[in-house]
């Protein structure tokens, strides 16, 4: 909790630092009065409204932030744009001094990607979630652009290790199967907490959320024959809508794109059960082979592909008649199978043959078999590549989709995601270790053996960044996207939680054509939030916040009782922490009282950069995030110091 608070505070600090810096040059822009702005024939209309309600925006509540982008002349929506946006508090309600602001100036700073300079709310952020073997989920803020460094944004404890997970289309909820607790944990990704635990019984393993979001399908791998099957959960209410025994063995689950049919494999039964979703009733068991090990539905062929681990065959089930329409021969050892988004090419790993087979759904023939060594066990697809993870190799293999279907088999490329082979870690999860990143043409890869998450961008020789997971061993990854999404033609929206009351600058950027504009949003104080502010007020007795690098700096601050406005003397547990943006190496410094209510500490700023100083007094329940902090700039030669990533 402290960590989160600090993380948030750091962001806020970075911002305030900027705001408080003297602005040289042009006077600040006048605040635009309207929320519609037109430039170069493009109209941008900004709105922010409370989620699920009317009225004003209030601190602590969620808001839907929306940009409607249209052709100014015709009113036609402009589609498929990738706007960027930020929200910064321009003027906190409780601000003592009115700092001069320049929204545009701030935005160009954010765009330059400098370390430690981040807005309060980045409307284009995303998080990487790692399903750890230590009964937890780590939430990593990848902060792309800062190689080699990251921090864990939040940590979500689970009752036991999770096996598989599925998220809602809006990325707001994540459902995690926990076999040893016989439950499904529901993670609220706004607050990154387990909000509900759904006891499903049995051995819940595979979990799939159907396309329209209505039902969660949970494979129950119970050994009891009469029980082994699927549990169907109403995703909205989390009530169990049905239990459908389908047969023995592990269950893989696939749905037709229209959510009419659910397909459940029964590994030890050699069958695939077909379930009518509208009636939640099994209508058929189809014998597909001795060991159905993977299911993949081809949208283009409207057919279900069933890979069999033992026979090495892929059975093709007609999506309407549910009969085996074709069989494609491969070799025993088949594992997970996936189709390209259009459904044309099916990729299936073969761990015994050290190969990946590529099936052409247009004619149900094997188009290629490419060699991928080290016992491949998992695969993921982006628009450009199929990524394959092997148990016995730290290398991730990449098969370029553009080369699939040609006369020559595609040339496999590789990069190393760590140095240890994933197989060195025991207990590989059902969920996959590779997930496409939110940014185009990039993936995140977990290495359960070394505990790291690797960020790889297509075209590079090696991962761009490594995210350490603080001693946890991630077996699977997910991504929670907080970016603006085009929810309707020309309407780009996201949901944010408004941390503070005040007047916000809402920066909006479009790349092509290059447009940059600032809107304004007002957020009211929330009477529902207890107004018990901290019992203390703080005043930093600092004349110049620009200090030289390397030396010790003595800081004094005065603590006042908020109610009586009298100095608080004799506080024995005043604590100070400070660190350099973006939050590494938190250092605690000793504090002494030097006068009535005046306390002093010494900080050492070893590197050039932005530093943040926080004060807490646990005895009066004042935490680090409760009091305003102090920002310092450590610089050399009197020049403002730039972050390492500065260009």
């Amino acid at each position, binding site marked *: 909790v402290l960590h989160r608070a600090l993380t948030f505070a750091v962001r806020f600090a970075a911002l305030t630092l900027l705001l408080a810096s003297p602005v040289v040059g042009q006077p600040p822009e006048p605040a635009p009065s309207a929320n519609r702005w037109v430039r170069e024939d493009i109209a941008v*209309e900004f709105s922010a409204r409370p989620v699920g309600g009317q009225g004003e925006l209030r601190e602590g509540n969620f808001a839907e932030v929306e940009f409607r982008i249209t052709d100014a002349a*015709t009113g036609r929506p402009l589609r498929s744009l990738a706007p960027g946006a930020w929200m910064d508090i321009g003027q906190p309600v409780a601000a003592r001094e009115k700092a001069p602001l320049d929204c545009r100036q701030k935005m160009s700073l954010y765009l330059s990607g400098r370390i430690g300079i981040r807005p309060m709310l980045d409307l284009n952020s995303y998080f990487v979630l790692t399903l750890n073997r230590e009964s937890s989920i780590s939430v990593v803020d990848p902060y792309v652009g800062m190689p080699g460094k990251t921090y864990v944004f939040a940590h979500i404890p689970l009752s036991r290790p999770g096996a598989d997970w599925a998220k809602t289309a809006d990325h707001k909820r994540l459902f995690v199967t926990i076999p040893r607790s016989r439950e499904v944990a529901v993670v609220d990704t706004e607050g990154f907490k387990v909000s509900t635990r759904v006891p499903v019984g049995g051995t819940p393993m595979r979990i799939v959320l159907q396309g329209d979001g*209505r039902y969660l399908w949970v494979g129950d791998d119970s050994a009891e024959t009469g029980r082994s099957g699927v549990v169907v959960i109403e995703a909205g*209410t989390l009530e169990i809508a049905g239990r459908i025994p389908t047969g023995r063995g592990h269950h893989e689950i696939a749905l037709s794109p229209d959510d009419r049919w659910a397909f459940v494999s029964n590994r030890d039964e050699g069958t695939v059960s077909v379930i009518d979703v*509208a009636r939640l009733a099994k209508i058929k068991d189809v014998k597909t082979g001795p060991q159905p090990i993977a299911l993949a539905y081809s949208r283009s062929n409207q057919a279900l592909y069933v890979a069999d681990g033992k026979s090495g065959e892929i059975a093709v089930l007609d999506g309407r008649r549910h009969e085996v329409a074709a069989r494609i021969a491969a070799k025993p050892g088949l594992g997970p199978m996936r189709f390209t988004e259009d459904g044309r090419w099916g990729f299936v790993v073969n761990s015994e043959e050290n190969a990946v087979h590529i099936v052409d759904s*247009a004619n*149900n023939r094997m188009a290629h078999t490419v060699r991928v060594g080290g016992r491949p066990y998992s695969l993921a697809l982006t628009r450009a590549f199929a990524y394959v993870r092997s148990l016995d190799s730290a290398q991730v293999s990449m098969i370029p989709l553009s080369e699939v279907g040609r006369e020559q088999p595609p040339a496999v490329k590789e990069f190393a995601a760590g140095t240890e082979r994933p197989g060195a870690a025991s207990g590989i999860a059902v969920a996959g270790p590779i997930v496409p990143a939110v940014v185009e043409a990039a993936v995140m890869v977990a290495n359960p053996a070394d505990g790291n998450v690797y960020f790889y961008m297509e075209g590079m020789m090696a991962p761009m960044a490594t995210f350490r997971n603080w001693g946890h061993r991630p077996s699977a990854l997910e991504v929670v996207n907080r970016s603006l999404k085009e929810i309707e033609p020309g309407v780009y929206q996201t949901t944010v939680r408004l941390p503070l009351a005040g007047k916000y600058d809402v920066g909006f950027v479009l790349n092509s054509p290059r447009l940059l504009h600032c809107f304004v949003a007002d957020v009211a104080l929330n009477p529902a939030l207890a107004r018990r502010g901290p019992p203390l007020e703080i005043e930093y007795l600092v004349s110049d916040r620009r200090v030289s690098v390397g030396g010790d700096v003595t800081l004094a601050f005065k603590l006042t009782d908020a109610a009586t406005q009298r100095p608080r003397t004799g506080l024995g547990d005043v604590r100070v922490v400070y660190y350099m943006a973006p939050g590494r190496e938190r250092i605690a410094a000793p504090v002494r009282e030097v006068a009535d209510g005046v306390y002093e500490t010494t900080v050492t700023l070893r590197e050039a950069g932005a530093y943040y100083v926080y004060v807490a007094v646990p005895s009066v329940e004042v935490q680090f995030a409760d009091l305003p902090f102090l920002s310092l700039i450590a610089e050399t030669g009197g020049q403002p110091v730039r972050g390492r990533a500065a260009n």
Partner: protein
Amino acid sequence: MRRALLVFPVLVLIPALAAAGNLSEAERRGQRIYLEGQGRGSITARLVGPGLTAPGSAFPCASCHLDEGPGVREGGVRAADITHATLTKEFPGVRPSGRAHGPYTDETLKRAVTAGRDPGGNLLHEAHPHYVMNAEDLEDLVAYLKVLGQEPVPGVSDTEIRVGILLPDGGPLEAAATAVRDLLQVYFEELNDQGGVYRRKLRLVPARFDPLRPASAAAAARDLIDGQDVLCLLANLGVPPEDEGLALLAAANVPVIAPLQIAVRPPDGADDHTFHIYATVDDQARVMVDFVAAATEGSLARVAILHATDRIGTAGAAGARQQADKHGLMVVVEVPFAAGRLPAAESVRLLREARTDTVLFFGPGTDAVAFLHEAEREQWRPPFLAPAPMVGATVLSTASELTRTVFLSSPVAILDVQSRDAAPFLALLAKFGTPGEYSSFHVAAYAGAKLLEEALRRSGREVTRHRLVQALGSLWAFPTGVTPLLTYGRSRRVGALGAQILTIDVERQGLIVAAPWREPQ
């Protein structure tokens, strides 16, 4: 220098054929409202956000909900899935639309269209316009919405895709037509042996017409569309240029792939459903002028344009004129003439008087030969350029001293029979014809078949005419093995947009490449 014998069809232009599937009248009218925003009465769209009113045609349903009705598509755009199955589905709690409501009925569907409210009374997102239309149009639209996304697709059954081809019965192109049909039959057989396309076999449905009877081709086309149930047409040839059927075909939206005829570039958007392999006559004219400009480097800057007054001759002349302007070549004289009736002696006199250096010719081969004879008689031998598809066969058959200064533009790049790429084509050819002997008809028909196969693969099992057109229109640098790479786009319906320049090898009765295949500058 590579050589090959090329034979070209008489040029004809061919717009699209069409039919509207097996919809009821009401559904068909509703489809028009859905796709084009036009009904029997007037339709307007009120945009709630900006508070504007616009004609319905500016905001047809399909522009957001897309042609088949399902929601999420390109670019992450999320418009609601409005297929009937989804709209009428029971769904407790919040639907993917973000709203909670019961299943739609006809009445609530109408209210959604006109008042922007769902069955629960919730406002649709304000991006959804409120439409104003009369009750009849609303009925039609609802009728169509019920079948949206599941309309029967012409020519597509559970096991088969039917592809039509228009062929002349008799006339000079009969043999070529038979050869093309044979090639396509063998191509389809091979494809079917390989598993077909998405568990369906391809079937060629030939429709013969009498090229000498004016209404015959139209009748055959109508029969193909209405009676024979075809998804698309492939490699049509020999349809007379002024055949009345062409107008009928153009109105309907049947995809036509690789018509084996030279074409005129249609006005933008006029014919979205015809996909040509080779450059139109105007683009060929541009390549001819580029060739003249490069060869003369300004020293021979006085060109004359001779052109027939039919549509193709006029288009060729227009292309030449524009490109000459671009290069700063001077068009010293233009002689328009009725096709087949060039006043040769008069023309030669006019051109010589204008001190013409180079002749650009767009008309029938007989007129070209007449001109060349007359010039020869006057012992005047200027470079003479013409599109091979217009004059080729006639000029070639009279190859002699007369044709030594003739340059032909050919949109067809000469096939390198030694190349690996061409091997599948030659292997296929060997299965039904004389090995090694082929014409440009074979090449173009084969390229068309490759194109169709690829587009069908990209369309998926749920192929529709619309999806097929989308798939064709998004092909980029597609290799057929026998043509330059084919690229299509939103406003590009010619795959290999370019030409090469050939000269005639008089001794060997063949063609020699004077300038390799290239796109116009």
